[in-house]
């Protein structure tokens, strides 16, 4: 079981900065994020976009902001549980919270800081009726181990780098048959990857089906075929063992919605005194919270993290006095 002082749900900019403020007070932090890398939206959705309203940076790329935050918190050695989603929260006999992820990893802490942004990034699922009944029975949204597809027939849907890269990879002696289905004729990935796919299609090594989309799936328990509808040529069936729809990720509130917190329009209500929620010991900062006058700005989340951490310290050490010391006085931070 991972034990820490503040368990931070969400490793986006606000969650990351919390580590710094907590570290100044000598509080240890551990972060959980469903994405495989820290940075939240900044690293997942718009790493190359410039942000103009981070104080002291006339312009900074979202990805660079993440890197600089990681550098800033490095001296405090935060722990990370990445690629896992916080699912269940319980309280133990000593009043500490235990949060378990969807992979069974357990974390224990007296304080929870929910910095989950817009929610947990989950694969966009195509609107097909019986889709869920085929999940893990032929339908996968992420390729964890390509060996899983060795010798199998695979249909991939998508028009971006993910779809192109996996098509190229699996067609190279892994899958027995690869079909790439895309709604348009042009792809939006790296030109080299696009070219490779075109070359493979021309050489007959993959089936490239454009101006089409998968509209139905069927099978006897496990997936056996997909129905592909062409823009003008009607519907046809393609036999397959697997269908991998790669339509990107979109954020959903997820399991946090079941944690008995006061939620309003997919955001957690907090007290602006210290950004605490209705559950003592659980705080919410950044885009995930809401209060009168709330602005969903990164810099607001930074401020909320700072105030929240002071309150967290007083909960953990009710008998200690907290003295605000400036970093210019204390020197370079680090435990």
């Amino acid at each position: 079981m991972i034990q820490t002082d503040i368990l931070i749900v969400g490793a986006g900019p606000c969650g990351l900065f919390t580590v710094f403020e907590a570290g100044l007070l000598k509080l240890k932090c551990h972060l959980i994020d469903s994405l495989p890398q820290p940075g939240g939206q900044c690293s997942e959705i718009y790493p190359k976009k410039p942000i103009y309203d981070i104080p002291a940076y006339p312009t900074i790329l979202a990805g660079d902001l993440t890197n600089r935050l990681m550098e800033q918190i490095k001296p405090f050695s935060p722990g990370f549980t990445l690629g896992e989603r916080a699912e269940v929260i319980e309280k133990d006999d000593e009043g500490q919270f235990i949060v378990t992820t969807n992979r069974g990893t357990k974390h224990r802490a007296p304080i929870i800081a929910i910095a989950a942004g817009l929610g947990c990034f989950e694969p966009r699922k195509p609107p097909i009726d019986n889709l869920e009944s085929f999940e893990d029975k032929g339908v996968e949204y992420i390729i964890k181990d390509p060996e899983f597809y060795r010798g199998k027939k695979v249909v991939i849907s998508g028009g971006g780098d993910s779809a192109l890269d996996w098509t190229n990879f699996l067609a190279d002696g892994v899958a027995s048959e690869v079909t790439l289905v895309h709604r348009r004729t042009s792809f939006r990935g790296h030109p080299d990857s696009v070219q490779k796919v075109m070359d493979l299609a021309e050489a007959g090594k993959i089936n490239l089906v454009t101006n089409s989309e998968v509209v139905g799936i069927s099978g006897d328990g496990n997936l056996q075929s997909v129905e592909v509808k062409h823009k003008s040529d009607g519907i046809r069936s393609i036999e397959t063992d697997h269908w991998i729809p790669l339509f990107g990720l979109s954020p959903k509130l997820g399991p946090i919605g079941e944690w008995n917190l006061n939620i309003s329009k997919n955001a957690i209500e907090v007290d602006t005194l210290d950004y605490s929620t209705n559950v003592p010991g659980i705080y919410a900062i950044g885009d995930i919270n809401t209060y009168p006058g709330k602005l969903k700005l990164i810099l607001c989340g930074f401020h909320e993290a700072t105030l929240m951490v002071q309150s967290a310290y007083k909960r953990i050490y009710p008998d200690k006095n907290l003295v605000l010391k400036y970093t210019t006085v204390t020197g370079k931070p680090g435990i």
Partner: protein
Amino acid sequence: MENMIKVFVIDRDDNRHELDAPTDMNMNMMELCRSYDLPVEGTCGGMAMCASCHMYVLSSHKLTERSEDEEDMLDEAFFVEDNSRLGCQIKLASDLDRIEVKLAPVG
């Protein structure tokens, strides 16, 4: 009224809403819908990075062409038709008076 146009939005329950929209505030259709509390998430804030403002343009108003970013994003949306647009990419302007859109289904 100067600098105001009428916009008609059909929501996902097929209710038709008549909105008064300003053309001098650099507003787009996504922001307009949100300001009227219509169910448009606008998750990415208008960067053409989420498709939550996906809508169908029903009237024959001429709009600017879809940008590459918009096309890319529509690739990841569903129920995409020829008249699909991302609301955040439609800037409110006087030549869009009486434009009619329908919110696309979401996930």
